[in-house]
């Protein structure tokens, strides 16, 4: 009995010691809060509080000064009923899905093309270049290329096209903006995806060749599964970036004297125009409602993408 009791005491003491850990672990635990607290405080001040404030503002009518007037969900109701917002939301989805499919398709195509190309790092730099050029410069270039008397139409006329398309007309303006965004983004995503593909051991491709796999099969059974994690991250990045897209459209379709046509607005531009239009009383409540909607949209989409793209990690 004594022996049993002694053994029991020993077990309890060991368990207690392991709970407390070594002196180093105890010290670490004690320092955990002081070390994490500053980051947590900063995170709360610069992210959580502003988000909470934005939610609060979105429930009010407020021009950015003076007293706020309680509005409840009026701003949200107004926003969802506003045809301009509906158009902006459509445009955002078009960019997110249409632009996303195009960007990733081209990025994969380029990755496959460049994989075995000599001097690919130089080519990669060239492809990446549009990503670092400011949107304003690109908008000037776009005008130079695509306006009625631009370079593209001059070339088309030179090869006998009598009536080249009106690329920058209102009907095509948003499509041209999408084209510009795809062009800018492709270099970035190609670079990231190429970095992932570079990590795939060459012998897997050699094995594919020996097994007689064609390029689609190589892509489907080697490249895609082994770069899946990176593609997941890229999808999240694209989702966030496309929903936030704003300055490129402002530079492409706007001017120093005003906002671009509402036909080119996205949800982000809607928020900007509502809060910072040159004329008129700013509607911070409505802009905040739009911002909260955008945040919610991003959160839902990111969670969905993470779930849909979840796979067991492949070790190689």
């Amino acid at each position, binding site marked *: 009995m004594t022996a049993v009791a002694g053994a029991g005491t020993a077990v309890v003491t060991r368990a207690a010691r392991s709970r407390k850990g070594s002196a180093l672990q105890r010290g670490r635990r004690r320092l955990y809060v002081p070390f994490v607290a500053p980051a947590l*405080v900063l995170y709360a001040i610069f992210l959580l509080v502003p988000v909470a404030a934005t939610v609060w503002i979105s429930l009010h009518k407020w021009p950015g000064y003076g007293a706020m007037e309680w509005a409840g969900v009026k701003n949200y109701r107004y926003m969802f009923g506003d045809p301009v917002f509906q158009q902006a939301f459509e445009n955002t989805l078009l960019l997110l899905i249409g632009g996303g499919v195009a960007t990733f398709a081209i990025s994969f195509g380029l990755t496959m093309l460049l994989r075995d190309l000599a001097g690919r790092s130089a080519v990669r730099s060239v492809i990446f270049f549009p990503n670092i050029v400011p949107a304003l410069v690109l908008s000037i270039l776009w005008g130079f290329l695509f306006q009625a008397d631009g370079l593209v139409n001059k070339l088309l006329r030179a090869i006998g096209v009598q009536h080249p398309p009106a690329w920058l007309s209102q009907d095509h303006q948003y499509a041209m903006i999408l084209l510009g965004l795809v062009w800018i983004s492709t270099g970035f995503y190609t670079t990231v995806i190429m970095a992932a593909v570079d990590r795939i051991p060459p012998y897997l491709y050699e094995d594919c060749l020996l097994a007689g796999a064609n390029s689609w099969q190589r892509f489907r059974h080697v490249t895609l599964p082994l770069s899946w994690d990176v593609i997941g991250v890229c999808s999240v990045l694209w989702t966030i970036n496309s929903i936030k897209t704003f300055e490129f459209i402002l530079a492409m379709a706007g001017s120093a004297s005003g906002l671009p046509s509402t036909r080119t607005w996205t949800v982000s531009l809607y928020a900007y125009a509502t809060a910072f239009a040159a004329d008129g*009383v700013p509607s911070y409540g409505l802009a905040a409602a739009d911002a909260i909607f955008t945040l919610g949209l991003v959160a839902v989409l990111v969670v969905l993408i993470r779930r849909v793209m979840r796979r067991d990690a492949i070790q190689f």
Partner: protein
Amino acid sequence: MKSPIAGRITATCTAAALAATALAGCGSGSGAGSSAGKELTYWSMWKDGEPQQTALKASIAEFTQQTGIKVNVQWQGRDVLTKLQPTLMNSPAADLIDNPYNNVKSKIPAGGAEDLGGVLGQKVSGEDKTVGEVIPEDLQKLAAVDGKHPMLPYVITCNSIWYNGARFPQLAKNPPATWQAFQQLVGKQKLALDADIPGYNASWYISLVIAKLGVGSFHQAAADKTGATWDKPQYAAAAAQVEQLAKGGYFADGYNASKFPAMQQKWATNKADFILMGSWLPSEAKTYAAEGFQYRTFNFPADGSPSTPVACQPSGWVVPAKAEHKPAAEQLIAFLYGKKQMQSYEDATASLMARQDVSVAPAAADIAALVKKNGTYMNADGVTADFSDWWTKVFLPLDDQLVTGKLSAADFIGKLKSQSADYWKRGQ
């Protein structure tokens, strides 16, 4: 018991908070209270390097030299009012700003700006005249809001039809006075229009409405929450005239598919003949205009309305009601209305000044004469200040389609009526 680390963190946080408070203190308010009257803070809508900035900078230096009042200037750029707004009702970050009328009227809440009516009675430095005597009365009225003067205008921009005087010398003496005469003139010529800028497109329709129904008619229709005013035949007739311009090939090729300033450049290089544009045009076009280009302009032709004022927008001085250094700011305003200061601004910028006794640059001579003779009305009939959201969301998108020939006049009026009624019903 507090651990030493926790104590140090508390101390650090306290120090950081104090530093932040001190910094915030530095940023708020418009200057040290002890030096009230001897300094002021001016946030300018001009940016460093612009001709307007150069002229104002020199005038401000002279003001400081003469009065000993130090002016802390920040060349903030056009959105100066947006930046000032959060502090406007409590402790304004500037004692003086300048901005266009539309912004001042729409963005500054009632009681947010000092009524500068008192400055009108102040003597202009070095002159016998008062400020009110050097600013023409109709310009004072144009820049007033409900009979008060939250802004005193110092420069105006006006819309008119511009052409190269070297190519059309006969027009200086015989400009087309009626729409019919104008149509005959442009039957053989081309109009330049950068239709990617909705505000430029809108000028055509609004000018035609005003030419028929007179000043206030566009504003009246915009203010009608039922949309019924748009049913008046003159509104449809004005739309039909724009449709005719669009579909009749009057606008230079590519106007609907180019990027500003492509069409303006066409005009300045004699590939198009007329352009409806603001009085800033000569300064914008001077870098690419053809050699020997003579900037001449005539008023938008009448089409039934007996009076033919010029569409203008004043820009001017605003002193926040809660500014700390109001007397110093008002003293600076009165100083800047001096003939010498106005002349130096005019010489640097070729603008249209509030004072009509300055010598006008050749490029601004026609428009200055027009304003003097015909008087003015608020650009866009004041709608951009009063119904800005409706203007952006309802009017401009439909007008863009009308000007580019995508919408017939009848459809334009029909949609304008129904969408306006829906817009006001939704309310915000």
